[in-house]
């Protein structure tokens, strides 16, 4: 598309109106910043930003109200993670009686925060609401190793998620209330 240029008047071609309006705008800003507190800079370490709702910060794991790790090691987040930042070690075949009717929880869960791009796919894909992008945006460490967050760290940073559905607990209660017909 060719945009037709507007014909400039003689005065405009002398640049004077442009100079004048440029001077006006800059002078106004200068005055505002100096005397009327028009500064927009946030002086970071002292002034902190209020993280808005729905902000996508670092992904952390959560526990439910009964202190159960919500993650069941389905590895969908590992699969969906575009930069391959998530690495999950599944529990393996040994039956862990402490997991109850959930049967499964990750043996290890690592997120490489240096690789993470905070896209939120893991949260979106999680069928158990076990991983959430929280409000941490300033992640620092002194080594690459330190920036690989393990399960303990992710859980302690993630805290408790007050899930109202409580799928597994409900299932357990339902099963207990029914007469089970054991084959033997």
């Amino acid at each position, binding site marked *: 598309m060719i945009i037709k240029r507007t014909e400039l008047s003689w005065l405009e071609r002398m640049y004077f109106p*442009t*100079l004048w309006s*440029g*001077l006006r*705008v*800059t002078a106004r*800003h*200068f005055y*505002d*910043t*100096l005397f009327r507190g*028009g*500064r*927009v*800079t946030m*002086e970071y370490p002292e002034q902190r930003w209020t993280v808005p709702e729905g902000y996508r910060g670092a992904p952390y794991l959560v526990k439910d109200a009964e202190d159960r790790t919500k993650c069941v090691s389905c590895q969908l987040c590992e699969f969906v993670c575009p930069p391959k930042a998530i690495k999950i070690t599944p529990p393996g075949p040994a039956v862990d009686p402490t997991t109850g009717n959930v049967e499964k929880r990750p043996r290890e869960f690592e997120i490489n925060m240096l690789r993470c791009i905070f896209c939120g796919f893991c949260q979106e894909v999680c069928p158990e609401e076990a991983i959430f992008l929280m409000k941490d945006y300033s992640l620092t460490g002194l080594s690459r190793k330190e920036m690989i967050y393990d399960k303990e760290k992710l859980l302690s940073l993630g805290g408790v998620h007050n899930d109202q559905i409580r799928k597994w607990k409900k299932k357990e209660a339902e099963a207990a209330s029914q007469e089970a017909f054991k084959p033997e």
Partner: protein
Amino acid sequence: MQALLDILTNHREVAMSLAKIVAVLAVLLPMVAYSVLAERKLSALIQNRVGPNRVALPLIGGIPILGPFLTRLGFWQPLADGLKSFLKEDFTPAHVRKAYFWLAPALALVPAFMTMAVIPFGSFLGRERMVLADLNVGILYTFGIVSLGVYGIVLAGYAANSKYPFLGGIRSSAQLISYEIAMGMSVVPVFMLVGDLNLSKVIAYQSDGLTSWLVFKQPVAFVIFMVAAFAETNRLPFDLPESETELVGGYHTEYSSMKFALFFMGEYSNMIASSAMMVTLFLGGWTLPFFGLNATPNEDGAIWMGLAHIGIFLAKVMCLLVVFIWVRWMLPRFRYDQLMDLGWRRFIPLGLANIVVTAVILFLQAKQ
């Protein structure tokens, strides 16, 4: 060592010249550093920002009110900037032409300093004239030296041996040559009025009150000179040799650390030199038409008078520096064809016309 002392004691002129050179550099270099700070602070204020406000000195920072004030002002920022330039890795890419690569920054900085030699920055201090070299052909010297400045940039562009610096260098040479002509044209009427090429005489001509300032007698020449000075110093709106949106960093793309800092200092020294030239040629130099400060003091004049004149000169230079800085944050960059058009098709004819008109007026005046 003894021989040196002998020369100094026996040849007072040499000794005093050396002292003046040291003094001028001692003022010029901090001015360069603080004009960078002024640039950063002014741009911050124009853009609703804060600007440098972090660097604090250990002891002075502890003084109540003053310490934090200076810190907020960014007063110590130039120290940090300078230190950083020294400490950064001085990286020389493998593909550059080494000798030229090392030579270019020096070539960019030196002419800017040399221009200062002929500028009268004060009247007398004691019996000493406040000018390093009171040349009779001062302005010719200036033009000769200023045109050397382009070599630093062209050489940098060539030495880097990569495309963006090269383009920057080419642009720069074309731009500087074009605007030097306009600049030369613009000052001809000034000297026609003054009748002398010596810059001290130019100032003396302007010491008859505000109306005798050449900016009022030759406004067209002043405008052309000022615009050409922007172009010569590669300042916005004419910073095409280093236009970062098109050429990465222009001629200094491949430079880092202290070598880059030399280019940076060269740019600001050039600004100061141009401002000093403008003050001298058009704004009455060290004179001020109030409180009798425009009278040329005799050789036994009071010391305070001499100091005041230096102060006046510096104040005028600083005002022009602010104009330089402000324009940078006010105007967008010219397109290259617009730049050339402005130089060749507007300013050179205008400068020529200005010469002719001035000549005609002078002729008519002489006839009366």
